[in-house]
């Protein structure tokens, strides 16, 4: 039995790796994507192009502008000297923000009155707008507090002092890169398995396989093994790159990570094989894999938090194995989670894996064309 499964797995491996193009598709793109996306997928903004419209031209207003210029988040690209200049600069997307300081800014300040500083932000991307607003607000608050101290204003009654756990500098790369490990592992394992049954169905060799003494379970294992092995190897390489290449701290237990990875692969391969055995043709299998992949990524919490979704959509996310794996991998990387802290993430993946795999095995014999 073991030898037969091994022979079948070996055949699957050869079918995948023998063809130069399919070998290329499995090996090269995940790494290229890891590099490109890890650098690209960041919510941190730097060098935000901004313009200054300073009607005041005093030492005080120049000091405020200098704070913006000195920040790594902002890059002064334009100076505006009339009201009419603001609209075109924003409309054309030359700048994301305009800092407008009115003519009485320093006069008000020196009289001991509150002076307004206005910022106008391009809201076409509302998330970017909010982040820019936060950066600008903290620069202005710092300036204001320093001014108060240096010029003998009364202290603010209360101040906010913030600390961030697990990611003190709030680098969004630390959030995104572990997410990409999950995303790419899902893509690779789905691609490897989704076509395996459908290809044989289309070629007619699946019927031959079914009339051999092999039991459906054995066929299933033979088909699943290459996916699991390729998935573990690629995921390990990607994790190594995340740690050594991108410097994302790996604080938790590798055991917790690999238990999660194995269960995640089990569930994603189960889904891949299920899609593959439901499909009559390779095209249907690919489309099926795709129709699973897109919502699975979107609803996993990869880019946008699940907590922001409406209740009904949140319920759907419980069917998504990536949802659980992202908690596992981010937990192990950043929060230093151990096996027992992640049990609630493990068992849903195990259930998804076992049920989809058994359904796929059942389909082997019950879906004939």
């Amino acid at each position, binding site marked *: 039995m073991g030898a037969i499964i091994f022979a079948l797995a070996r055949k699957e491996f050869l079918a995948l790796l023998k063809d130069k*193009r399919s070998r290329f*598709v499995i090996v090269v793109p995940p790494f290229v*994507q890891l590099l*490109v996306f890890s650098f*690209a997928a*960041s*919510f941190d*903004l730097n060098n*935000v192009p901004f313009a200054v419209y300073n009607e005041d031209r005093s030492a005080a207003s120049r000091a405020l502008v200098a704070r913006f210029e000195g920040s790594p988040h902002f890059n002064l690209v334009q100076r505006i000297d009339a009201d009419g200049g603001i609209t075109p600069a924003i*409309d*054309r*997307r030359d700048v994301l923000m305009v800092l407008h300081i009115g003519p009485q800014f320093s006069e008000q*300040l020196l009289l*001991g009155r509150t002076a*307004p*500083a*206005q910022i*106008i932000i391009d*809201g*076409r*991307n*509302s*998330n*970017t707008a909010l*982040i820019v*607003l*936060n950066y600008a*607000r903290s620069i*202005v608050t710092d*300036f*204001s507090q320093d001014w*108060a101290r240096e*010029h003998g*204003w009364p202290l603010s*009654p*209360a*101040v*906010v*002092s913030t600390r*961030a*756990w*697990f*990611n003190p500098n*709030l680098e969004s790369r*630390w*959030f995104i890169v572990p997410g990409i490990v999950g995303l790419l592992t899902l*893509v690779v394992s789905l*691609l490897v398995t989704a076509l395996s049954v459908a290809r044989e169905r289309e070629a007619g060799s699946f019927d031959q396989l079914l009339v051999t003494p092999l039991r459906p379970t054995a066929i299933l294992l033979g088909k699943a093994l290459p996916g699991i092995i390729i998935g573990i190897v690629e995921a390990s390489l990607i994790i190594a790159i995340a740690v050594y290449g991108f410097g994302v701290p790996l604080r938790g237990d590798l055991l917790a990570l690999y238990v999660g990875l194995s269960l995640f692969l089990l569930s994603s391969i189960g889904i891949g094989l299920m899609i593959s055995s439901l499909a009559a043709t390779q*095209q249907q299998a*690919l*489309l099926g894999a*795709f129709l699973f*992949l*897109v*919502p699975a990524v*979107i609803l996993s919490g990869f*880019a*946008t938090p699940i*907590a*922001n979704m409406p209740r009904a959509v949140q319920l759907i996310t419980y069917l998504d194995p990536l949802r659980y794996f992202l908690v596992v991998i981010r937990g192990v990387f950043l929060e230093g989670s151990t096996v027992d802290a992640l049990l609630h993430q493990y068992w849903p993946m195990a259930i998804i894996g076992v049920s989809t795999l058994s359904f796929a095995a059942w389909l082997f014999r019950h879906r004939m064309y």
Partner: protein
Amino acid sequence: MRLRGLLRKESLQILRDPSSIAIAFVMPVVLLLLFGYGVSLDAKNVPLAVVVEQPSADTASLEAGFAYSNYFAPRHFASIQEAQGALERREVDGIVWLRADFARRLASTGNAPIGVIVNGVNANQARLVQGYVQGVWIGWLEQRARNRGEELRQPVRLEQRIWFNAEVRSTNYLVPGLIAVIMTLIGALLTALVVAREWERGTMEALMATPVRMRELLIGKLVPYFILGMGGMLLSVAMGLWLFRVPLAGSFWVLVLASALFMSATLAMGLLISVVTRNQFVAGQVAIIVTFLPAFILSGFIFEIRSMPWIIQWITHLVPARYFVAILQSLFLAGDVWPVVLPNAAALLLFAAVLFALVRLRTAAKRLE
């Protein structure tokens, strides 16, 4: 005449294969529903632990500020240890901690610290939460000063204006961006698969052996899919306008024209993939890897291109979705901003032309084999 026959054949082929119709119409609906409801970067009702070590009138009014904010769902904890435990278990996303001496320092020295701890794993969310906390803090300070018949004395007050999307609703920029992602899927994936299938089955060679010219063959393939894709686009726009209530500030015909350009570019890309790979398996994978994921991550749809490293920024110029997303976000939210629309439309035109030329080159060379 020959062309008409081909068009008829291709159209019938689409109409009789439900999976093509499914890609063009069911997929946009499903994706828009998923994204429109599932993807939101606006944090609402963030679970927040509040620890007040010594309650007073001031701490009560500050707490009320958090309770009345739409952004927070505060929960009371008796001690900071309990609150930290809840933060570790991911039950709350942040802690507000008012120490025992808060009221005393508020009354005497000023600068009474409002301790804030956020879970930094999701850095973007954490930053937004910090911003919301600052908002509550400023509002509370102003309210408190007013109640005491004073004026809040702070040197600089920030006035913010967010243009084009005043209520900073993320759906307003995500839905237009999605149209680009969905059209990429329809255009590239569908043509790549369908045409690759013809190569694989040998029907392409059979067609080539007829007197039909290659150019006619390609046009015959593209026109029906173009119509299908534009249908999917109109459906998406209709859903965006009426279901998700996204405003369309620009003109509809500019939108249609820009979409037609983008559709041509993606169809050409799908065709090129199928001509190069001639294999459904590889074509499908390449289509997913070079079209969907870049359209999602490198198009500026979620992540800001201007903050990416310059190499990545350069790569984004090779992603047609980038130009279309820029056009869409301006058209929907800002209006017909010609300095944005025209250069991006020109880039799309160039893209389509180059890709079609490459397709012609490949097919002309292959014909001689």
